[in-house]
Structures are given as structure tokens and as C-alpha cells.
């Protein structure tokens, strides 16, 4: 397609949105009213199919539509949490009934979702899940434990990966379900971290029940379906980094949205600290006077070189993507670079704090923010795939090096797992 053809199409779409928003957007709507309007108009998710609350527009139109919303100061559909991963998974693998039941309430924000994949015994090795789903009297009984489940405590539904066949190899014995979180067999417990926050939950299943129609995809296709969820998780990782960005409009509907966001942002409030808060370094160095110490200047320069070059590397990846060029190695490196940055930042913050780093809490430096950095950074090189897993992925997928020899290809029943006896 020629550029000018694309441009004129975009302009036509933009004009349509603008007209529709002018006619419909009003701050006196309740949030739910407004989202229902969005869902019915198809402008809430314009790139979704027409049959399901969208307008079937090509993916690259989303930015144009969003731009009009921003210009009008209008709110969009609910996006917080993992609801959009649930939606993407159900759109691809769900039945008509699933879509009918779940999609609309995902967009209106009436239902919240959580992701039940990780377990105490399967972190890096997600496919090693041992939560079991056993068919009994025509219903699935779920037993086991999930971990690192953000927002489980206010979710209506969970995306569950559970083992339905123990005689098949690891990846083949898993199935994918939608689980009703509000039932007696499901217990959600917050999990406290070393930095004092409790952003994640443990979820225990004791004969939790799933009706057979809540299986997503075919029996035994759980890993394949989960891959869809994870692919969307990776794709929207940039979006996740915008947590906490809430619109600052005035009016009841904005109050409602801010209240909603506040709940979802709560678990992530220490994430910027986890990444090392490089943004604070220069000012702290100036304030402490250590900016004139040649040794400290070296450390700061090295840290900023790391963080600047990592930023440019991500931008190179994005630019290549936008030009439709094959992705270079740049795209896979951000996570590992982030670990280096966080660790280096933690070291520099320590240098700048001196013995003050012995303190935490509101009377300590920056009302405890510095302590929170030092006690949160260790999570960066673990959460979302350890540095070691990242290096494996980079070596194997980007550099084409040989895979690890495998010791878990037989029937899962026989694969050593958990803690060695």
C-alpha cells in the first residue's frame, strides 16, 4: 500500500472517532455507562472483530484511534490487570460461549481476572506445573497451589494452567481453564516479600470446581493456549511499564477510574524502585556533595552509560519493528540489561547514602524510598524470568546456540520435580 493511501484511511477513521466522541463522550456518564457505550460502538477496542465489540480495523489503526480519545480527553475501556491477556486468549482459543460470557464484562471492568500459571515448584520451568485437574462426576476438581498471582484477591476469574494427564510428557499433559475465583475451594493468601510489601498472592485449591465447559482449547492443549497468553504478556510489557499513569480529568467518571486504578496500581508501587531509580542518582549526588568526588563520578557515569545505551537499544528494536525489518538481537536484551542497571543503581545509591543506608522507614532518606530501592532490586534479576533463563534464551534463540540437554521429556509422572528428597 502506498503511504498516502494509508494516510487517507487513517484520516477517515480519525474523523469517525472524533464525530462519535463529540456525540457520546461526557464526563457525567458513570464509568460503567460509558464503557457500555464504548463496547456497543466498537470504538473501545477498534481492532477487535466486529462480532465482539470491535470494528475489525487493522492493528496499526489503534494508535490513531487512541490519539483521538486522548485529544478529546475521553476514557477508554477497562485495561488494568491482566484482563486484556484473558481477552486475547479467549478471542483466539475460547468458544462462542466463552466470548459471550466473558469479553464484554472484561471491557466494562465488571469482572477482574488473574493468571494462575506459576507454582512454588515451577517458576523458571512453567510447564512443570503440578496443580492437578481431575474429572470427577463430570466436573473438574482442582487441587494444588499457585504462586506470584498478582491481584488474585480481587479477581472474579482466573486463567488456570493445570495438569490433566500425568502419563504424557510435561508440555502435553496440561490443560487450560477459566476458574471461578469466588468459591469455597479457592483460598487466596497474600505473600509478603523481603521489602515488606505483599504484592503477590498464593492461591490454594482444595477441590475447587470447574464446570467442563470452562476448558479453554482442547484437552491437553494447555501449554499452547498459555503460550498465547504469555506472548501477549510480553507484547504488552511496555504497556505494563506505564502502570500508575492515570488520567487527571475532572468529574465523577475520572474519580471512578482513579479509584479503580488505585487498586490495580497498589501491588506495583515498588516496581520503579525495583528497577533502581536511576532518575534519582544525579540529584542525590548533587545534594550529598559527592558529585565532586572523582570516584563517585566514575560510578555514576558508568551507570548512566548503561541505562542510556539500554534505552537506545530498545529504541533501535522498536524502530526496526516499525520499519517492518526482521527483529535484531536488540529486542531480547532489555530484561537482562535491566538487571545490570538495577544492580549498578543499587550500588551507586549505597555509595551516595553511606551509613544512612542502614536506615529504612519514614525517617530515613527520601522517606524510605532509598531503602526500598536497596531491598527491592534483588527481584529484578528474578521476576519474569531469571537472568540465567534470559541468557539461555538469548544464547539459544538469538545466537542460535545449542539447547540445554533435557531430562524431562518422558512421562511427567516420572520426571523428578519439586525438592529433591
Amino acid at each position, binding site marked *: 500500500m502506498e503511504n498516502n493511501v494509508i494516510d487517507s484511511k487513517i484520516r477517515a477513521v480519525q474523523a469517525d472517532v472524533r464525530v462519535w466522541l463529540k456525540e457520546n463522550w461526557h464526563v457525567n456518564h458513570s464509568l460503567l455507562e460509558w464503557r457500555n457505550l464504548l463496547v456497543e460502538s466498537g470504538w473501545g477496542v477498534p481492532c477487535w472483530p466486529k462480532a465482539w465489540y470491535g470494528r475489525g480495523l487493522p492493528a496499526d489503526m489503534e494508535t490513531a484511534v487512541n490519539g483521538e480519545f486522548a485529544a478529546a480527553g475521553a476514557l477508554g475501556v477497562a485495561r488494568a490487570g491482566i484482563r486484556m491477556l484473558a481477552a486475547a486468549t479467549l478471542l483466539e482459543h475460547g468458544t462462542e460461549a466463552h466470548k459471550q460470557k466473558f469479553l464484554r464484562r472484561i471491557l466494562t471492568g465488571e469482572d477482574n481476572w488473574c493468571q494462575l500459571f*506459576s507454582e*512454588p*515448584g*515451577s*517458576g*523458571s*520451568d512453567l510447564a*512443570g506445573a503440578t496443580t492437578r485437574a481431575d474429572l470427577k462426576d463430570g466436573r473438574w476438581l482442582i487441587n494444588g497451589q499457585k*504462586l*506470584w498471582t498478582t491481584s488474585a484477591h480481587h479477581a472474579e476469574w482466573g486463567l488456570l494452567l493445570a495438569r490433566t494427564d500425568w502419563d504424557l510428557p*510435561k508440555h502435553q499433559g496440561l490443560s487450560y481453564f477459566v476458574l471461578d475465583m469466588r468459591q469455597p475451594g479457592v483460598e487466596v493468601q497474600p*505473600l*509478603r*516479600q*523481603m521489602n*515488606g510489601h505483599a504484592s503477590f498472592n498464593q492461591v490454594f485449591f482444595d477441590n475447587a470446581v470447574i464446570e467442563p465447559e470452562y476448558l479453554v482449547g482442547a484437552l491437553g492443549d494447555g501449554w499452547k493456549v498459555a503460550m498465547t497468553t504469555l506472548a501477549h504478556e510480553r507484547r504488552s510489557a511496555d504497556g505494563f511499564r506505564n502502570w500508575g499513569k492515570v488520567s487527571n480529568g475532572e468529574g465523577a467518571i475520572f474519580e471512578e477510574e482513579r479509584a479503580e486504578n488505585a487498586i490495580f496500581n497498589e501491588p506495583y508501587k515498588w516496581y520503579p524502585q525495583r528497577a533502581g531509580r536511576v532518575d534519582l542518582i544525579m540529584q542525590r549526588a548533587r545534594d550529598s556533595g559527592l558529585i565532586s568526588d572523582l*570516584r563517585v563520578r566514575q560510578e555514576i557515569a558508568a551507570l548512566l552509560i548503561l541505562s542510556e545505551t539500554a534505552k537506545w537499544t530498545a529504541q533501535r528494536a522498536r524502530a526496526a519493528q516499525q520499519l517492518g525489518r526482521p527483529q535484531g538481537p536488540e529486542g531480547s536484551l532489555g530484561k537482562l540489561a535491566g538487571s545490570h542497571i538495577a*544492580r549498578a543503581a543499587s550500588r551507586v545509591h*549505597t*555509595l551516595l*547514602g*553511606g*551509613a*544512612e*543506608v*542502614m*536506615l*529504612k*522507614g*519514614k*525517617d*530515613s532518606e527520601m522517606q524510605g524510598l532509598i*531503602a526500598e530501592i*536497596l*531491598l527491592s532490586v*534483588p*527481584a529484578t*534479576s*528474578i*521476576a519474569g524470568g*531469571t*537472568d*540465567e533463563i534470559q*541468557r539461555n534464551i538469548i544464547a539459544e534463540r538469538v545466537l542460535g546456540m545449542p539447547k*540445554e540437554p*533435557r*531430562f*524431562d*521429556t518422558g512421562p511427567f509422572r516420572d*520426571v*523428578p*520435580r*519439586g*525438592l*529433591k528428597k
Partner: protein
Amino acid sequence: MQYSFSDEQEQFRDIVARFMREKSPTSEVRKLMETASGYDANIWQQMNQELGLGALCIPEVYGGQGFGFVELAIVLEEMGRNLFCAPFFSSSVLATQAILNTATEAQKSAILPDIASGQRIATLAMCEANASWRAKDVSMLAEPVDGGFSLSGKKHLVTDGMYADTFVVAACVDNGAGKSEAAFFLVQSDASGLRRAEQDGIDATRKLAELEFRGVVAEMLGKPDSVKVDKSIAFSCVALANEMVGGCQYLLSSAVEYAQLRMQFGRTIGSFQAIKHMCADMLLEVELARSAAYQAAQAVHHAAQAESEDDSEMLALASLAKASVSDAYIRTAETCIQIHGGIGFTWDNDTHLWFKRAKSSEEFLGGPMLHRELLMQAWGV
């Protein structure tokens, strides 16, 4: 022999280690760190009555057992390994070393027996807003008054400051020639004009306090002598380094053990070369740091016994040890969390207890960058 412990010392270590294992399991550490005082008075008493650890390296004339610094280092290593919660470091290291290095005979005779028995808990108040434990950075001024000196100002990062009975406070006096010289002063916890407030430390197993002095009348220990003040801090650095080595060893062992239990991909994670090599690197770093701590302990041992004119080699080793072990401890703690994965970042897993001790100890008594510089200075470079 210079590079090994004697059989007696090894036996002594076994006894201390057994006590620490029994009295300071992590369940106990977790319980005590949530209390205000941070220690169990009964166990403190047992430690002093059964093992006599408080008396260990106080000379016999002052009610002590007269052992040397190497024995003290052994005790600290075992305490650090088990995160033993007690004011031992405050009382038997910081305060005792300050007193031993600066006080008069009479003062030692008056104070040390109660510290040796554990009846009196003492600590050091030195660090001010500039967060330094160096004599030259002490800015609190001790003004001569009737009955001693008057102290005003603040001290913070005072370990066990809320529950100590006695404070050794660093302050300056004018030496007449317009220059000021640092000295230690004795203040009792019930002194008029003294206020104390808890400080919230990242390491809940080592309690901190801020002290405010408003014209508190204090007794000077010995004479003003910045060199001796620095020397007593150097002794404490060596003690801290040995305590930290114990923590390093715990973290290393914990990481190796977990790596051999935890399965992923059908094998223990310890069978992956990445993890194995991390463990090998940790071991190397810990053993090098251990050598530094031991070597420094021996140097202090000799320096404390034979009053030498030139302390520069001892001071060099103290800074070398503090720098070496500080780096090793925090890196070992980071690696231990990494090997534990997500579990290692949870509150219920014990690793963070040592991580926080490591982070806190890194800058306590001066960070590695400072001590590398002090090492060069002590070497006359």
C-alpha cells in the same frame, strides 16, 4: 601457627557454634527481631554464665578471661553465621574496645567487670549527621564543666542504643593549640539531658537508636587521643569483618544446599553449570574474604598484646578486611537470593535476614570505598 587456628581454638569454636545453633535458630531470630530490645535476656545470661563470652577477651584484672582477639573473632564469626540477636557487638566489641584502648586503669577497673559479666550493656555513640566513624569527623564538642565535660548534640546509628546501660560517646576537646582532638566519654543511660529514640534499621536484628544530648555531664575516658579513637574503631572493624564472614558462610551453604534440592526441568538446579559456577565464584570470594578477616584478627591479636609504636600494618589489615568482607558479603547475599529465585525474595525465606545484615554491615563503620582508601593511607601510599 600463623595461618591456622590451634586445636584449642577449634574446640572453642565448636562450643560456641553449638550454642549459637541451639539458641539462635532462625525461628528465634525472627521472633527477637520483632521485639523492641531485639534480644532475649535469658539467653544473654546463659551466654555469659555458661560460656563467659562477655568476659572472653577482657583482661583478667578487669574480671575477664584474658583471651585474645582471635578468640573474639571466632565468637563473632559464629554469631554472624547464626544472626545471633544480642547486644554482644555493641557491648563486648564497640564499647569494650573503646574502653580498653583509651581508659585509665581505674576506669577500666570500674567499668569492665560489669561488662564482662554481662550485667551492664554498653555501646558506642560516635556517628553524627555525616555518618562517619572516624575521629576526624567527630564534631560534637565536649565542654569542660564541674565534674567532667558537658556534651550537647546528636549521635545516631547507635547500636542497641535503646536498651544499653552505658554509652561510650565520641566527642572533641580543644587541645589548647586551637586544634581539636577526639576522646571517648562515659555516659549512663539515666543521665540527665539524654534522650533516646528508636531508629528503624533495614536490619531488624541489629537495633539502632538516635541519642540527643542536652548538656549531659560525662566522664572522659583517659586522655584525648584521636589516634587511639581510630585504633579502637579499627579493632571493631576487624571484629565486624569476622562476624560478616560467618554470614557469608551461611549464605554460601544455604545457596549450595538449596541448589541441590530444588528441581527444575527434571534436574536439580545445582546441576546447571550457571548455578555451579555461581557457587564456585561465591566460594572463592568468601574464602578470600575469610583470609582477610582471619589475618586482620591475628594482627589485632598481636597489636593488643604487644603495644607497638607503629600500628600502621594493623590499621592496614583492618581496612583491608572490612573492604574485602563487605564486598563479599553483599555479593554473596545477592547471589544467594538469585539462586533461590522468587522464593528467595519472600519474607518467609530466611535469605533476606542475612541480606539485610550484609547491606547494613557494608556501610557500618565505613564502606568499602572508604576502607580501600584508608588501606592505601595506612600503607603510607
